[in-house]
């Protein structure tokens, strides 16, 4: 009889920091201790706290171990699993949980008490880190496939669409189009036309990994939701388009599809209802443009992944020119919950026009890097300061970037804005797929804009001129500014060109590509001006504008900096400062590569960076 479960995270983050070895070590230690009949080791999906991986949770106590290494396994097994003594030094330490449990008898933090999890509301991620994604029965135990059963036996396809409409669910892939409307548009002429249900799992935004985590942690939720969508619009074939760079996700999804077929939850006559549904995986080769819906479907058709003009919209003419519903992974992950608990339940969460929850991938200058899910309308401050644990090293929050290369920046003075689709658009950003990159005072906003633009220039498919040529020109202007050759007129040129690209590009990639430039111009124009007029980078990031110099009167002539300099740019001068014995050093700015390696070597603070 099993009395304890050891959950080892098998998400991509923890896998790359060694969780498979930890899982194997637990298995062998447990056998060595003769506990194989009592303790079960389970591989799960992502828990969300990726910065602290590999993570391990021991139930029934819910003890949360972080940064576990293979060497720690024997100790956890013999101390905790055999003797019941929690290995305190490995327990995730969290000030919030420590306060909460004061006075309580347990001296350790249980997972749900940590501030990281307490403020979250996990809906799309509800099974991630709880069930074994490679075991369909664990998903069924968490009410899995009950929504599909309910739909097929109790609801008409129109009931299903009405429920999704009433719930107010909007697409989680970025644009926020009402999901129910999409389904309704594709629902005409059921039974007479071949139709398709597709899933966009081509998560391309730098820093976003919520779709990957759902595929890895709860793949059956996606399968169930796609079958429900198939029933609603009258399609019996589905495709999941997932990027080949997600090997663990692809593997688990394939296992899940095979299991669903074996259990008769995919295939012919599901639940004896006469409804047939089959699902296949199509791999993308990692082109960012294939996250755009028309390009994605073109790619599934086996052609070069390029977008085409809309209309016709996919609901009318989509994959293979047939009516198609295309939703994002996170959108689908909400569907079974909405069917089971009802539209009102879902609509009770969130803001007036954005219902439910949203998953964010927290990254950048933040303590708790990882995946968080919060109700719509949560403020940026709550996400960053409470759940994210704030900015490390006591630095000051400067801005957050949402929506990746298509989005924009939210400056510090808007940190109390409740996050939903409409608010973000209003302040010049967008929800995007949910990447949230936090920036502190050491980030240069011009450099950030340049980073995202560099990405879109690379990823522009080249089909339409505004995007292909326009983004390239934008990048050139930015390069000019960060190298100290900018003119004030360049700012007007940036704005003018950005607006042309937005209005004239063929697809979402080009239409949103100038957003990082426009939003940084809007909120951080002074930084652009500093680069152009003062020829300075206030954050000290843009190398061509940074100057390192040595204060000859402070320099004692020890030569530590010169030893460290990789470019031999530091040499002794003839000048001996009053009161010093040795001649001082100076930096030759022509040879200096601005690496900053000299800075920490000087104990006398004689080197400065401007």
């Amino acid at each position, binding site marked *: 009889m099993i009395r304890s479960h050891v959950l080892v995270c098998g998400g991509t983050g923890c896998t790359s920091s060694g969780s498979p070895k930890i899982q194997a070590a637990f298995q062998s230690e447990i056998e060595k201790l003769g506990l194989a009949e009592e303790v079960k080791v389970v591989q799960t999906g992502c828990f969300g706290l990726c910065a602290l991986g590999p993570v391990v949770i021991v139930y029934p106590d819910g003890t949360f171990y972080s940064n576990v290494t293979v060497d720690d396994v024997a100790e956890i097994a013999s101390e905790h699993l055999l*003797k019941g*003594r929690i290995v305190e030094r490995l327990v995730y330490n969290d000030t919030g949980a420590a306060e909460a449990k004061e006075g309580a008898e347990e001296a350790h933090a249980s997972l749900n008490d940590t501030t990281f999890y307490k403020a979250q509301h996990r809906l799309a991620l509800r099974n991630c880190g709880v069930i074994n994604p490679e075991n369909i029965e664990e998903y069924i*135990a968490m009410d899995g496939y009950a929504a599909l059963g309910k739909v097929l036996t109790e609801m008409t396809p129109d009931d299903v669409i009405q429920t999704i409409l009433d719930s107010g669910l909007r697409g989680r892939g970025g644009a926020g189009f009402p999901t129910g409307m999409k389904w309704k548009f594709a629902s005409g002429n059921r039974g007479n036309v071949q139709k398709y249900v597709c899933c966009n799992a081509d998560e391309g935004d730098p820093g976003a990994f919520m779709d990957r985590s759902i595929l890895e942690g709860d793949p059956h939720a996606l399968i169930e939701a796609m079958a429900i969508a198939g029933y609603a619009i009258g399609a019996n074939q589905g495709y999941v388009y997932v990027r080949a760079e997600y090997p663990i996700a692809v593997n688990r999804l394939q296992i899940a599809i095979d299991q669903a077929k074996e259990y008769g939850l995919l295939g012919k006559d599901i639940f004896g209802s006469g409804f047939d549904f089959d699902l296949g995986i199509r791999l993308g080769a990692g082109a960012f443009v294939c996250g755009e819906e028309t390009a994605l479907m073109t790619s599934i058709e086996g052609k070069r992944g390029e977008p085409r003009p809309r209309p016709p919209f996919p609901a009318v003419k989509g994959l293979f020119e047939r009516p198609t519903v295309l939703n994002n992974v996170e959108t689908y992950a909400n569907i079974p919950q909405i069917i089971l608990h009802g539209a009102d339940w879902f609509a009770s969460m969130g803001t007036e026009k954005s219902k439910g929850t949203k998953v964010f991938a927290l990254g950048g200058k933040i303590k708790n890097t990882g995946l968080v899910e919060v109700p719509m309308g949560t403020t940026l401050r709550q996400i960053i300061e409470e759940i994210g644990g704030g900015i490390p090293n006591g630095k000051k929050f400067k801005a957050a970037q949402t929506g990746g290369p298509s989005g924009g920046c939210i400056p510090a003075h808007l940190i109390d804005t409740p996050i939903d689709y409409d608010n973000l658009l209003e302040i010049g950003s967008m929800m995007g797929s949910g990447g949230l990159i936090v920036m502190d005072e050491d980030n240069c906003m011009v450099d950030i804009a340049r980073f995202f633009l560099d990405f879109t220039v690379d990823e522009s498919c080249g089909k339409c001129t505004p995007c292909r040529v326009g983004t390239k020109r934008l990048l050139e202007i930015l390069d000019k500014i960060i190298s100290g050759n900018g003119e004030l007129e360049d700012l007007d040129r940036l704005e003018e060109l950005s607006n042309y690209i937005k209005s004239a590009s063929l697809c979402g990639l080009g239409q949103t590509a100038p957003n990082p430039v426009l939003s940084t111009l809007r909120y951080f124009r002074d930084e652009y001006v500093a680069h152009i007029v003062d020829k300075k980078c206030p954050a000290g990031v843009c190398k061509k504008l940074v100057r390192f110099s040595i204060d000859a009167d402070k320099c004692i002539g020890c030569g530590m900096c010169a030893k460290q300099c990789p470019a031999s740019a530091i040499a002794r001068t003839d000048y001996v400062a009053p009161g010093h014995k040795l001649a001082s050093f100076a930096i030759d700015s022509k040879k200096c590569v601005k690496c900053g390696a000299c800075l920490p070597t000087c104990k006398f603070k004689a080197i400065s960076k401007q």
Partner: protein
Amino acid sequence: MKSLAELAAIREKMKDKIVLREGGENTRIVVGMATCGIAAGARPVLNAFVEGVDREDLNGKVVVSQTGCIGLCQYEPIVEICEPGKEKVTYVKMTVEKAEKVLKEHIKGGKIVEEYTITSAQKA
């Protein structure tokens, strides 16, 4: 899958197996499992509780867990019963037979087995 009943059967069968992973307001049976506890025979006691909980169909309502040494080594094996909203009850010098009785009378019946508690042991 031809029917909802089939799905429900799998769900029921599996639910007991993963209910461990849900926190919440459960009755907790905590067995002292430090070196002293194990030496005094805590393992069979722990197993008796685990098996008993399963046999009596108490999965999801009662959680069997372990703890370290609480400093009363002469009374080991020690078992604590923590019920939501109630005082903790500490049983001492437990055996498999005593465990069965505690399970039946205290956990199921709601009546504390006074003779095994630490208070009676200290009086004697």
